[in-house]
């Protein structure tokens, strides 16, 4: 296939009912990639929250816009070791992501909201937001054999 390492490319409309489809696909993909059950759940959760954020924030709940979820095998360095992993890139044509929001709110107040970014950061080894020619790109990477909740999240 053209893109190196590509496993699966999902294009869906921005309808929240499709979140269950995305979760089902990502959960299976993480299983066959070799992640542990808790890792499969947390990667699936991260992708679910990321797609939900695109639906709500980038597209303001318009249900007919396009979201792409592109899944690749990658390898990279984590804690001084070369590791294999899974990269999941989300692409949308919605409103730009507001960088100021990247500082997650404190979790000490008992208040719903503002949890999604926290979940993503908690699950993934890399989290990068970019905007390239009107396209929002969110790159999530998780390496195999990590200990779950490292914190190398980065904005660019």
């Amino acid at each position, binding site marked *: 296939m053209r893109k190196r390492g590509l496993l699966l490319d999902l294009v869906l409309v921005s309808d929240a009912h499709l979140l269950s489809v995305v979760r089902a696909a990502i959960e299976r993909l993480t299983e066959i990639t070799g992640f542990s059950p808790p890792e499969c759940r947390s990667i699936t*959760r991260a992708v679910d929250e990321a797609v939900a954020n695109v*639906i709500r924030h980038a597209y303001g709940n318009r249900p007919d816009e396009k979201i792409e979820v592109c899944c690749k095998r990658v390898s990279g360095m984590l804690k001084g070791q070369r590791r294999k992993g899974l990269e999941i890139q989300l692409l949308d044509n919605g409103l730009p992501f507001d960088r100021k929001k990247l500082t997650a709110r404190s979790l000490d107040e008992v208040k719903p909201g503002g*949890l999604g970014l*926290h979940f993503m950061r908690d699950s993934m080894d890399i989290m990068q937001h970019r905007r390239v020619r009107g396209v929002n790109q969110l790159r999530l990477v998780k390496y195999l054999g990590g200990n779950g909740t490292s914190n190398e999240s980065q904005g660019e």
Partner: protein
Amino acid sequence: MQISARRLDQVTIFDINGHIDLANSPELRKTLLKELRETKTPRVILNLTGVRYIDSSGVASLVEGLKAARDQGLRFILYGLSPSAREVLQLSRLIKIFEVFDTEEQALA
């Protein structure tokens, strides 16, 4: 997601089935708040045995349910959390604000 109420003598049990996510958490919130207004029992229990997944918007709906229950002076109890549901409450540091039990028996005790 389906939600239905069993109204017993001293307790109301809401049986919830299906994933709770952005597609249905507004409906969960609405149903929960409406049902709570009609609740005369001092205790409400959410049976989450049939819920494999809860996202952050679902957590928010549960928190709203908890608040509404507290405003009415009701106990608000969860039981039957799946691994994923338990993780999402732990990650959001909200597990400690809910009363959480494993089984219906324990929730009723």
